[in-house]
């Protein structure tokens, strides 16, 4: 099985503060990889460096390398626009634009130059079907997306990310603001999406990590303490700190 990301000796600084320390990770293709760890340990930071969303933060700089299918994403010839098309993202809180359901989903493809009416219609429908929300919104495509429930909005955010046909999807605590039923729906969705996409998810919910992920990385103060098969990490952690964390004996 190929890797989608190869992260090598990655250090990341916010100004003088070193948020990631010597991170080395190979992330497998068509798998769900979970990032767990206490608050402030650098999970979001690593996730956001995978599609260079950290570029937007003043004073943020990195050392080391990240390769996406063996292409250096911080290399000179890397087109950030194209990178973000290939590596899509959904955030903790649904952040739909104040426009219609249709326009939200069509925003990405339009950004990348798709203008044809029929082509867009088709992309929108397929993305919504793939995100398992088509039936709920098909009668209100032209209405504002902000009238939907939180869970629906989050799935619509995923549909919006799918619409640019990415290879990898990054999710930063996508269910932390949702009720258990909506959470279940999203987990189900991710398990079907993983056949076509590589998925990386940050979660504070360890049950969620065990339910859906293939591999898990445990972070502590900017370091990856342990990274392995999810089942193994949760049943036979090698590191004492990992064990403390997953058994809840940790601050």
């Amino acid at each position, binding site marked *: 099985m190929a890797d989608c990301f190869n992260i090598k000796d990655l250090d990341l600084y916010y100004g003088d503060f070193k948020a990631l320390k010597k991170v080395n990770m190979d992330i497998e293709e068509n798998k769900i990889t979970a990032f767990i760890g206490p608050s402030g340990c650098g999970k979001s930071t690593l996730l956001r460096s995978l*599609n260079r*969303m950290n570029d*937007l933060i*003043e004073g943020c700089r990195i050392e080391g390398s990240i390769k996406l299918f063996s292409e250096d994403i911080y290399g000179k010839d890397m087109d*950030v*626009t*194209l*990178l*973000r*098309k290939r590596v*899509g*993202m959904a*955030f903790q*809180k649904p*952040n*739909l*634009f*104040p*426009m219609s359901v249709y326009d939200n989903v069509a*925003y*990405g493809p339009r*950004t*990348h130059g798709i203008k044809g009416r029929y082509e867009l219609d088709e992309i929108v429908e397929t993305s919504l079907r793939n995100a398992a929300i088509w039936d709920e919104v098909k009668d209100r495509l032209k209405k*504002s997306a*902000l*009238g939907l429930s939180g869970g629906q909005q989050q799935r619509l*955010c995923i549909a*919006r*990310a799918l619409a*640019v046909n990415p290879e990898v999807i990054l999710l930063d605590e996508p269910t932390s603001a949702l009720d258990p039923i909506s959470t279940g729906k999203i987990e189900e969705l991710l398990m079907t999406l993983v056949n076509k996409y590589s998925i990386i998810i940050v979660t504070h919910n360890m049950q969620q990590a065990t339910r859906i992920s293939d591999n898990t990385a445990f972070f502590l103060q900017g370091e990856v303490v342990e990274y392995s098969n999810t089942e193994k990490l949760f049943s036979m952690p090698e590191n004492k700190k990992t064990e403390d964390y997953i058994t809840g004996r940790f601050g």
Partner: protein
Amino acid sequence: MTIKKNKIKEKIFAILTWGAGILSIVVLLYIIGFILYKGVPYIKPSLFSLKYTSENVSLMPALISTIIMTLMSLLIAIPFGVFSAVFLTEYAKSGNRFVKIVRVTTETLSGIPSIVYGLFGMLFFVTFLNWGFSILSGAVTLAIMILPLIMRSSEEALSAVPDVFREGSFGLGAGKLRTVFKIVLPAAAPGIFAGIILAVGRVVGETAALIYTSGTVAQIPDSPFASARTLAVHMYSLSGEGLHMGEGYATAVVLLVLVIGINALSAFVAKRIGGYGKDK
């Protein structure tokens, strides 16, 4: 004991606040009533004739000039104001020296009395650039006067747009330009619009800055370099001459209706601000 005292205090305070409220409403109603009482009898069709003569002091040319003046000054001030605000919120790095200078300057400019703008306009546009007393000199002067207002309100509206919208757009591969035009500006539009309407209110009500720049000719201007008077200046002239006080009041009625209309519109728009982020 203390409870009783508190109760009395509360009563007094309630009476005071109610009193203040009622007093200001009464004063307002009195002014409006006074203007209507004095002005309405003079509102006749002849007051709306296209030509102003010394017998028939028609307000129609002034009304048309007001509209032209408003449109011209907005045409100049909106692009400058909105795009400066976009630069300040979206492009300039926070803590940038230049940004601070611009902020201090706009704040200072918004506190300057309008007569000062008028004098500046007269020295610079009327005399130095030799545009004469003209609707152009007036409009540019007013544009400078309302620029800080439009900039400030646009800046506020733009920074009120949640960052998660920008992130969402960048995350889909959109560039800065697309994000600003397709996501940020539309989301900020109601706030920007409310600022523009306030600016219109100031233009419509302005006299001091105009008397020295666009002059007081009471005909419909036939070119940007023609002198013209707005309704407010018209009123000022009529009451200064003292020969047509009734018509002056009638003009005040028209101006009042105009201003109330503008305020109603801005209240309506303001209600919709922040509509994004919330439902519907």
